[in-house]
């Protein structure tokens, strides 16, 4: 134990020079970016994609920005919020990073927010999409470059009514905040147009078999809206076809249901599904073609929305560092620079932050098609400049409750 204690002290002593570097205000040494994602546990694959997007970008710029070297410190949070917090503490208090980026789950995001604010450390959220992080429970030090769960779904509800011509829809979604907020957003604009959500079903996040749910689903609706991700999305697609529903009721849903991370493992059962998101790997822009080609060269697979999210989030970080000429030691100025950053060449297209710190961006309607033997999310429509508040006045919007299992109620 003495030896362990010695090691502890030795480690603490070794940290002193690192702290010393920070105290000297002259920009010396590398810019340290702390990065937290789940790299083990059930969400490891998503975390890996997020990390891949960042590594690709950092390689492109040779790990340099604003004239300084960039050092990336990666931590695994196992998708457990308490562990996310522990890792954040390590990055901030022990590694003395200049800013942080990452995390996947809403619960991890909410757990981090008070700590990030207390430590006054700028943090970029490229993926966490919980609405309230940029709405009713805003955090000063968090800059979100991703999306809110309801954001693409607001646009999608209107599109489903006006263009797809649906009048009645049944929804089936994972029973947690991401599901509620997505379905809530879809329902609100779909019903505002005159449509009706006639059935709302929730499945546990750990769902293994969709048979009992598929047996209950109404066959009389114009379409079924599904929200799943990862393994559950694969399973749902397969069973939706096996139950003969695919030929009877068109399937639409959240962007994650047909995200490229799972699309590669799907078969013909996915073809024709229409979903909406702020990104598609099949987006026909030069920036996206370059990104997806580079991603495929390096990782030998299609870029997912997770990878693109961190690639874009990383561009935000780099743009801010460039704007400051590498002088990232002043955290308040770094935060300002992050909020003011205007990165270009983003795979998803032009993005700007609203005054609440959430992107205003194009939302794409995508249909799964097989092109050159591979499934892809072909973009069939684009809704430009969608804000997290859709067409509503932000102040009015924030007075309504957060989308939940009870709000908006089924009609």
């Amino acid at each position, binding site marked *: 134990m003495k030896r362990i204690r010695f090691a502890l002290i030795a480690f603490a002593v070794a940290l002193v020079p690192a702290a010393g570097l920070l105290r000297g205000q002259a920009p010396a040494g590398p810019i340290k970016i702390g990065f937290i994602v789940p790299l*083990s546990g059930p969400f490891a694959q998503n975390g890996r994609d997020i990390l891949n997007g960042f590594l690709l970008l950092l390689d492109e710029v040779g790990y340099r920005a604003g004239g300084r070297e960039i050092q990336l410190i990666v931590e695994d949070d196992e998708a*457990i919020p308490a562990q996310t917090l522990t890792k954040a503490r*390590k990055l901030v208090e022990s590694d003395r990073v200049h800013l942080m980026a990452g995390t996947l789950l809403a619960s991890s995001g909410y757990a981090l927010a008070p700590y990030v604010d207390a430590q006054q450390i700028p943090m970029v959220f490229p993926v966490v999409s919980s609405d309230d992080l940029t709405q009713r429970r805003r955090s000063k030090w968090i800059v979100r470059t991703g999306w809110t769960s309801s954001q693409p779904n607001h646009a999608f509800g209107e599109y489903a009514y006006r263009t797809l011509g649906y009048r009645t829809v049944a929804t089936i979604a994972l029973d947690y905040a991401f599901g509620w907020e997505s379905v809530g957003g879809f329902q609100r604009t779909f019903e505002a147009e005159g449509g009706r959500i006639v059935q709302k079903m929730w499945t546990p996040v750990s769902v293994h078999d969709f048979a009992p749910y598929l047996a209950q689903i109404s066959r009389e609706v114009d379409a079924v809206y599904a929200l799943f991700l990862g393994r559950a999305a694969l399973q749902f697609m397969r069973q939706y076809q096996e139950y003969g529903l695919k030929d009877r009721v068109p399937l639409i849903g959240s962007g994650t249901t047909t995200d490229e991370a799972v699309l590669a493992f799907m078969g013909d059962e996915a073809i024709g599904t229409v979903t909406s998101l702020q990104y598609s790997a099949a987006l026909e822009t030069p920036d996206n073609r370059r990104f997806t080609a580079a991603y495929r060269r390096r990782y030998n697979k299609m870029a997912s929305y997770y990878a693109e999210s961190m690639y874009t989030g990383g561009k935000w970080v780099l743009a801010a560092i460039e704007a400051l000429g590498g002088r990232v030691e002043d955290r308040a100025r770094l935060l300002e620079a992050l909020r003011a950053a205007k990165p270009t060449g983003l795979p998803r297209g032009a993005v700007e932050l609203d005054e609440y710190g959430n992107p205003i961006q194009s939302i794409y309607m995508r249909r799964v098609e097989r092109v050159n033997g591979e499934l892809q999310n072909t973009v069939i429509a684009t809704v430009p400049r969608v804000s997290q508040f859709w067409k509503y006045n932000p102040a009015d919007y924030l007075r309504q409750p957060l989308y939940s299992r009870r709000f908006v109620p089924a009609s």
Partner: protein
Amino acid sequence: MAAHDAAFPGWRLPVVAGLALVLALGPVFMTSYWVGLLTQIVILAILAMSLDILLGYTGLPSLGHAAFFGVAAYAVAVLSTTYRADFWTCVVAAVLIGTAVSAVFGLIVSHVRDVYFLMITLALGMILWGVSYRWIPVTGGDNGISGIPTLEAHAGLPVSGPVAFYYVTLLVFVVCTTLMILIVRSPFGLTLRGIRENESRMKSLGFRTWIHCYLSYVIAGAFASVAGVMWAYYNGFVSPTYLDLTASSELFLMVTLGGPATLAGPLLGAGAIVLLKNVMSAYTARWLLILGMVYIVAILAAPRGIWNVGGRKSA
């Protein structure tokens, strides 16, 4: 700290002294991150020791012990955020609620033994996890509850910061450990060990073993609640992962790795697991592999736990 009937190997004294030194003076030398890890170890040690009363001393393997920890943490979170209750109300109410839940569950589980006990505690733990996950208006569901005030601010302490919180935790730890040592060394504690070794003989000697098992369960639940209160203040938020099966089984590992029925073992186990998890993962993405190998080596080389290495007879 060792149980008196255990053989006392020579390495223990310097280890206990070194450990006490680190716990008492470590934070003076450490960076705030390491103070945080040490705080985690001490809080989880209280929790692991409370399970040890049940698992090690009474021989009742509970796979739902994190539930009481979680219930108390949620009680602190709900009372301090939604109801803005003062510090002592939060603490006392949380410990009482956690203990009350264990008193109710104890009525159900204290009649069964062995694998049935394992399964019923697992099921009850999962029920509480489900409640935390689904009773959204109160618990916030998957998002949990954040915004719990720091203990220093809430209690109105003149000092604040990680070191101050650590020493408060250490005080709680010392009080809890002393109480637990008194309990396991009391005639009641000896009876628990008797039940573990041979319950039917204890029955025939005239002991009402049911009530002893019940009390052991409630006592363990009470100490777990204390740990839950500290954990809620330490992290500043609660989420359903506090009381899920992973949390309960990790706790189980802390006790078995460190050495059941020793109280000191769970402290070592908690320390080993927290340090392995956080130090290893900084160096390699394959840290789970290393953790797994450590468990296997520990089981092969020290089947009675780290604390019992070199001991002649189990406590």
